[in-house]
Every structure is written in structure tokens, then in C-alpha cells.
């Protein structure tokens, strides 16, 4: 195991709304090693994006507030810095880069690509305007954009979706961020472009020893690229471990259900899929027991009335699940 670059401990982010307190992120802990690719997987509304915005302290406040926990990045607790502080502004963008799902909304439509890139470079490095522009051209070349010099003078709307996402990657690359957080980086893109962008990100991770956090709902993407996976459900981590364990030996009923829901490219398709019945719970009215129990096909009488299960270790050294039962070991449910 390498050095821990980022360690999040018991992070809690709550939104205070008219409908009551919504615990979007409810006490999650995870870490990212240097040079590691970590994935946070879950369906919409499970808190995966909010958890990452919390790390960057970009959660809109009000209504959102980080109510507890620690975010230790390179030995420094970011929550102690405060969201508006100068230190945090230095970290955001320079040491932790973030790539969002929709590059069109995260790029300024009335500025050229070049001036946006140069602005970021000049914000974090002491260089002249001309030097910043040259660095910009180099980084665009590094993310395989043809005619980089011409593209510097283009506006975002003149570029395709894949190209825009490359610009976003170039911005994080220009600042040599040690950690890149990507929120559904390829969801808005076509599959062949998705493959290109992921190849590019993985190449950068390998070459620069950057760490990467991928927030996504695409289980295939995670299988292909991630080193470790955290599965989230209703604001909590329900299962975590190395990719091989999670994908080939899932132990939490939710993870098993998710994997069964994905249509396979090879398997005989005359069988029906095994979806998870029902819908995710309302975060404003969470039950006082396991949140997944109403949808759990294995849910036993014994689970009822018990408080939310804590994460506990199972087989592999780093395999944790939040479940009372022991599924996955030849279907036998023991408590």
C-alpha cells in the first residue's frame, strides 16, 4: 500500500430544506492512495457527487452544510481551512482538480479556451501571460488535441463534447494536480469517445502518478479502470474493496443487485434480467433500520428493527460490507 493522499473520515453533509434535513452524505469514510484509481459507484441521489463536492468544499451553503467529519489531504484537514479561505483556494484547482459531467456548463462560454487555460495557469503559477499561453498549448497537445494553437483561440461552443472534456482535463493537467476528481466524466459522451477520454485519463494517471477519483454509475467503466471501488446507497457506503473482489465476489445485496441489473454482452439473453425491485428511499424519511431492507431480496426477519448495520470486514483484507447477512458464499444466508 502506498501513501494515503486523501483520507475522508466520517464525512457528513446535510441539506437543510423545507422538507426537513436531508442527509445526502451520512458518515462515509474512504481513502485514496498515491497513483491510485478509486471509484465511487451508485445510482442517482445516493450522495456520490455531493461527497466529492464536499471534499472540494463546493457544496452550496445554504442549504447544504458539512456537519461533521475530517477531510485529510496530504496531512492537512481541509475542513479546518474553511471553504472561503485562501488556502482552500490554492488547493482547489492546483492540487485537487475536478472534472464535471457536462463540460459545456463548466467552461465559460464567452472566453476562448486559451484564455481560460492561461487564467488558471497564471492563478496558480508565477509565469508571464506569454509563458502561460505556451504552457496552455503544450497541455492541449498532451491531451491529444490536434492543432492545439488554433484550438486555443476557439470558444467552447465550437468544440465537440469529447474535445471539451479534453479541455477540462487539460486544465487539471496544467496545474499538475496530485488528485483529480471526476464526476461522471464520460456520461454525456458516446462510447467510442468515452473510451478515448478514459484512455487519456489513465495514461495521465500512469505518467504523472496522479490519483484519480471516478464518480460514476457505469459499472463497466469501473471494472475496466478502477483499482478500488466504494459502492454507495442512500448516503452511505454499503460495500468497499478492491475491484476484483467487488465485481467477481460481491457480498452486499445491493451490489449483487446492481451487477445483475446490467445487461451482459456475452451471456444468453433469453433470460430476463434480475432487477432490484422498488425504488431508492426518500432521503428525508429514512427508516430506522437498514435502508436497503425494503428492496432486499435476502432481507430476513432478523434484519427488521435492527439499527443500520456498521461496515464489517469479510473475506478479503480490504473487503467491507454494511450488511448483517453473509451472502455470496454459496447463497447461504447466515446471520
Amino acid at each position, binding site marked *: 500500500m502506498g501513501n494515503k493522499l486523501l483520507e475522508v473520515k466520517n464525512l457528513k453533509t446535510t441539506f437543510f430544506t423545507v422538507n426537513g434535513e436531508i442527509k445526502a452524505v451520512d458518515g462515509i469514510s474512504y481513502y485514496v492512495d498515491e497513483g491510485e484509481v478509486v471509484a465511487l459507484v451508485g445510482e442517482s441521489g445516493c450522495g456520490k457527487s455531493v461527497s466529492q463536492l464536499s471534499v472540494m468544499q463546493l457544496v452550496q451553503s445554504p442549504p447544504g452544510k458539512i456537519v461533521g467529519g475530517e477531510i485529510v489531504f496530504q496531512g492537512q484537514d481541509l475542513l479546518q481551512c474553511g471553504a472561503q479561505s485562501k488556502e482552500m483556494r490554492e488547493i482547489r484547482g492546483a492540487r485537487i482538480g475536478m472534472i464535471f459531467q457536462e463540460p459545456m456548463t463548466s467552461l465559460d462560454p464567452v472566453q476562448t479556451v486559451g484564455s481560460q487555460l492561461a487564467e488558471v495557469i497564471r492563478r496558480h503559477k508565477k509565469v508571464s501571460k506569454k509563458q502561460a499561453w505556451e504552457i496552455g498549448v503544450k497541455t492541449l497537445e498532451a491531451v491529444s488535441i490536434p492543432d492545439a494553437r488554433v484550438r486555443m483561440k476557439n470558444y467552447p461552443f465550437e468544440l465537440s463534447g469529447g474535445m471539451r472534456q479534453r479541455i477540462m482535463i487539460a486544465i487539471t493537467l496544467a496545474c499538475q494536480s496530485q488528485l483529480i476528481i471526476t464526476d461522471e466524466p464520460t456520461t454525456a459522451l458516446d462510447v467510442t469517445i468515452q473510451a478515448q477520454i478514459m484512455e487519456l485519463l489513465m495514461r495521465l494517471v500512469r505518467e504523472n502518478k496522479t490519483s484519480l477519483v471516478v464518480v460514476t454509475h457505469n459499472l463497466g467503466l469501473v*471494472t475496466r479502470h478502477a483499482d478500488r471501488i466504494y459502492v454507495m446507497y442512500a448516503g452511505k457506503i454499503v460495500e468497499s474493496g478492491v475491484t476484483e473482489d467487488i465485481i467477481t465476489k460481491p457480498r452486499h445485496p445491493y451490489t449483487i443487485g446492481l451487477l445483475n441489473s446490467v445487461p451482459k454482452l456475452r451471456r444468453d439473453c433469453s433470460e*430476463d434480467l434480475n*432487477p432490484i425491485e422498488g425504488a431508492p428511499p426518500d432521503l428525508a424519511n429514512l427508516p430506522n433500520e437498514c435502508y436497503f431492507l425494503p428492496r432486499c431480496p435476502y432481507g430476513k426477519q432478523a434484519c427488521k428493527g435492527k439499527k443500520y448495520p456498521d461496515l464489517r470486514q469479510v473475506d478479503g483484507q480490504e473487503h467491507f460490507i454494511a450488511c448483517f447477512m453473509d451472502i455470496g458464499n454459496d447463497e447461504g444466508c447466515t446471520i
Partner: protein
Amino acid sequence: MNEKKPLLQVEGLKMYFPLKKGLLSRTYCHVKAVDDVSFEVREGETFGIVGESGCGKTTTGKCILRIHDPTDGKIIYNGRDISKLPKSKFKENRRELQLIFQDPYESLDPRQSVCSILEEAIVCDRKFHTKEEIKKRMRELLSLVELHQDIALRYPHELSGGQRQRLGVARALACNPKLIVCDEPVSALDVSIQAQIINLFRRLQEELGLTYIFVAHDLAVVRHIAGRIGVMYLGRMVEILDSDDLFENSRHPYTKALLSAVPTTDYYREKRRERIVLEGEVPSPINAPPGCPFHPRCRYATDICRTTMPELLDRGRNHLVACYHDGPCES
């Protein structure tokens, strides 16, 4: 499946959208959204159309329903060319041809309650007249798509994504259609909900003998639901094959590249799999390259590909490929 007669035949379908400019809005060029597409759909089968954005898959679906009037080509439904029928005549067929949209948020009127959305569609069928009959039919439809009866009084914004898509399906079923064009019906849904809706589609097909044209970009989803698959690229059909053949026997370089680009959850295979990462992006359909539309990104491209468009030819076993270099052993 071969004995069944084709319910729908599309022959040489072309849909060109004119681009206009200037004071007199002269047409100066065309976007060739769909260019010479032919395929047939047999009764009771599901025909999947896959491709990336801008490849013309949605436009093809819309042409079949005459939402766009095709520039050229024939659409033969039940032995009758419906592409040139006047709108009034076409309406008679329209009840049998229905559409399910991608976005269940935008395809439902936010100011209509569930029951009035369904009522409108049921009245169109002209089989149900009294209030009692309509109510009975509504209950039937709701239970068909596994929605609770209480939902009838709610509004679309009170429903979850999955429930909304079920409602879209119920609305399409109201007129007892024969053919449903499903345009990316599960793309906007979460994986677990997506699987529920896919199962629903399959069950309805069995129970009601429906024929689907299933348009989507997700190969795994299409392979799961469709019997035959057409792969489109830049307005053209480049390969048509049985879905069982998709993984092992696809022959067009684009289909292979698509397959290799889709990440799967098969961990051990995924680690070993050779990946074909395509260079570049899809060219604009305004200035489509001459010859094979795929040649600028194809690694097998030769001179003939750059000048002449390969025809979609039958290579046996219902497998049609439009490529000069499609040796099955190349991979």
C-alpha cells in the same frame, strides 16, 4: 423466425434536412441525416438500431412514424407504402404505430394528471365511449405496466423516473399498437430501474405480440432485447446481424470498435481484452466524407474505401455488411 412475414420494410430511406441561408433562405446544402437505409422488421421481433449520437438512428425511427416526411425511399407497412400517403390517410395507420420517448420528463404534459394523459390516448382508439369503459381500460393499462391504481390521480412530477417511463409505455399501448418505436427508452434511467423496464418490454412483447424498433446507443441493452440489430454510422446502415452473432461474428470494423469500447462487468475478460480505441470523431453529416463514411477512422481503409461507398451485402445467415475488408478472422 424466418417464416414470419415482414411487418415493416424500409427501402432506400433518405432524410435530408435542408440548410438555408440568406435573405431568400436559399438551400445551400443538406444534412444527410439518413442516407439510403434499408431493413425489414418481422412480426413479433425486436429490431435494434444502435449507433453514436448523430448517426441518424432517431431520425430513422421518426421517419417510420412520419414525424419527418422522408426525402426519398419506401416504408412498407403491412404490404402498403405509407411514406407517401397523405396525412389524413396515414392517420388510420398511426394508431397501430406508436412511439415511446427517451425522456419521460419531457414527453408527459406536466399539467395533466395521469388519468387525463391516459384518457386522451384511450379516446383516440375510438373503441371505448362511456366513462365506465374508459375507466376500465385505464385500470387495465395501469396493471399491464405494473403501476398502482392510485397513481391515476397524480401528476407526472410526483412520479419517479421509472414510473414515468411506465406511464409512457401505458400511453403507447392504449390504442393496441402493432409496432412501437422505442427511442432510447431506458437511457435516462438508473441501472436497477433500467433492468425493470427492459423486463417489462419483454413481457409485454410476449403477452401482446408487439413488434419493437428499439433505438439506443447502449450495445448491451440492445443486444439483450433485440433479435436483430442494425448498426448505423453517419446516416448509413453499416451492418445488420442477429444479436446472437454480435459478439463473436460481427464483421464491420466499426461494429468491432464499438463492441470493444463498451466496458463490461466481466472482470477477468475485461483485463485481457484487446481494445480498439478509435481515433478522431464522427465527421459532420453536412460534409460526409466520400466513399465509406467510416474510412477516416478505419484502420483497414484502402483506396477503394475512400472513393466508393460499399454496398450492404448479404454474407449469408441473415448477416449484411457494408465493407470491403470484413474478413471474419480479423480482430
